[in-house]
């Protein structure tokens, strides 16, 4: 008996048939009410513009949003000092913070989906540490090298991040599941190893030029990038974000577990490699602009899930926008909280993210496998 039921466009034979035994009144409708994704995306896009303007306006020399608007629409030109502060200091920094927040949050979303675990982010998994280590090798040994216009520092940051993720992933995964303890220990060990190796490079540095870059990276300090650096990072962010788009459905399927995903037609190994490469590119973009910034990739996807649920297709734009907003706000706070001094945003994020991480650990303690 061969009955065609596997139809895509037509209707299945099951359509007309009536199944046995209906349950009346059992399992009532319920569940959590979640926000409409399009509404949230529009709200976040507006918020991103507002937060960017507020952040640009905020600092030792205040440039009011009204002046900015007037300048933008040609009504009132800026003074030379204001122009200098805006285009050479504030705007590049605010945009860099946005790029870093976008990249880290998206990388966190990818890694959490890959590991099927809400505590995985570039910092916890050691991906950021690997990127820093790769970048250190680039700075100290191959500073003059470039491939297709990309400096060795950025390329090695990407390679370090990808290699670290591959190692942590292979250690933490067993029988289609992620062992949380192994994930944490492997991520911690690799982060500690690479961060301290980077300090070792710092000691070796005789003239101290590379030292400054390294120290600010290790503290997670978003400096003032050159416009060319910002443009390359922005372009790469666009590429990595677009490359992540087709992964979102795959991440939803991977959430069912490897066996399920495979029997639903997903090529597991290829999907993993693709996710690791995309996540590592995003981490490398963030690290090259802001160094080691912890927990942004942990908090933002988690909050996104609270608002929209776990569907990665919906989460991608929300996570990216919210990540940019979050880090612009954090960096604005970091440079004004003890003005005229600045706190590296990485240190500020550790203050915020550390307790949040502990909260998540406590919430999911039942899934420990020891």
């Amino acid at each position: 008996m061969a009955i065609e039921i596997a139809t895509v466009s037509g209707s299945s034979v099951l359509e007309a048939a009536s199944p046995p035994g209906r349950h009346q009144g059992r399992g009532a409708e319920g569940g959590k009410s979640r926000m409409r994704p399009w509404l949230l995306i529009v709200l976040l896009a507006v918020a991103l513009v507002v937060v960017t303007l507020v952040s640009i306006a905020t600092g030792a020399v205040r440039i009011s949003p009204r002046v900015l608007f007037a300048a933008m629409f040609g009504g009132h030109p800026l003074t030379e000092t204001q122009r200098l502060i805006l285009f050479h200091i504030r705007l590049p920094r605010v945009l860099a913070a946005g790029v870093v927040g976008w990249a880290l949050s998206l990388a966190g979303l990818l890694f959490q989906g890959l590991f099927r675990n809400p505590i995985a982010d570039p910092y916890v998994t050691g991906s950021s540490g690997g990127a820093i280590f790769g970048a250190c090798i680039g700075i100290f040994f191959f500073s003059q090298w470039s491939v297709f216009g990309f400096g060795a520092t950025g390329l090695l940051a990407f390679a370090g991040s990808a290699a670290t993720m591959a190692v942590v992933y292979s250690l933490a995964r067993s029988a289609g599941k992620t062992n949380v303890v192994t994930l944490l220990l492997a991520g911690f060990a690799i982060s500690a190893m690479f961060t301290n190796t980077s300090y070792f490079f710092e000691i070796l540095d005789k003239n101290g030029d590379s030292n400054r870059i390294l120290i600010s990276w290790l503290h997670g300090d978003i400096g003032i990038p050159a416009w060319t650096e910002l443009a390359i990072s922005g372009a790469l962010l666009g590429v990595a974000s677009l490359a992540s788009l087709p992964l979102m459905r795959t991440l939803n399927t991977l959430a069912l577990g490897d066996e399920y995903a495979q029997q639903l037609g997903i090529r597991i190994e290829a999907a993993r490699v693709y996710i690791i490469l995309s996540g590592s590119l995003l981490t490398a973009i963030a690290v090259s602009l802001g160094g080691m910034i912890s927990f942004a990739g942990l908090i933002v996807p988690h909050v996104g899930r609270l608002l929209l649920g776990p569907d990665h297709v919906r989460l991608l734009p929300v996570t990216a926008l919210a990540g940019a907003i979050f880090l612009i706000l954090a960096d604005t706070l970091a440079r004004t909280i003890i003005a005229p001094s600045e706190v590296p945003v990485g240190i500020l994020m550790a203050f915020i993210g550390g307790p949040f991480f502990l909260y998540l650990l406590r919430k999911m303690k039942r899934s420990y496998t020891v």
Partner: protein
Amino acid sequence: MSCLLRLSGVHFDYQGHSVLRQAAFDLEEGSCSALIGTNGVGKTTLLRIAAGVLRPASGNVILRGRPMETISLKEIARTIALVPQQLELPFEFTVQQVVEQGRTPYIGMLRGPGRSDRLAVDRALDLADVSSLRHRIFNELSGGERQRVKIALGLAQEPRLLLLDEPTQNLDIGRQVELIDLLHFLRDQGITILASMHDLHLVDKNFSTVLLLSPGQPLASGSPEQMLKPSILEHAFQCPPDRHPLLIERAELYRREAR
């Protein structure tokens, strides 16, 4: 009837330990078969091999006349659905979102689900009688409800062959009967069914073919009358004939028939 799936000479090792040896069987289209055997004998492994999730160390798996390894994963997924024992989700997916994953083999990476996909999901939810749960969080459901959602996920694949790994696990007797009714209904719609089962009472009345896996023995198959003989079960399950109600009951039945 034509042969939908054929396994021949299938051998599988796990960590140096031989799990399956020379396993062979044919599944006819539209048949409803039960796979029985002791715990750890390799029933789940056999189902995974039949679903194309595991590759045997040696032997052949032929799906509708074609070697399984020559068929793409997506095509296999449009033909075979495996409903495993466990499904644990790391995030708070709703029932609808879980069942929608069954359309993965039909949806491209960049294309979202279309009308036909939404209809298939609605049908699967309805068939498995979980439409009313569609907005509930999967992780908050009872064992029985989860079981039905897993079946709905498999049905959303619109498969020709439905493989179920201990589908009556976690179900009370009322829900077991409902599940069996659903399997009968699906079989009547032309879906071939192979389910690993522990409850031999259910196997006796509801399956046309029984596949028996015994430790160190080749896979045996036959009708329930042939395969559920006390002598066979006693040997296969290492169970004294006077210690289990089913064996006592069947021994009595055979005695009566002999008289």
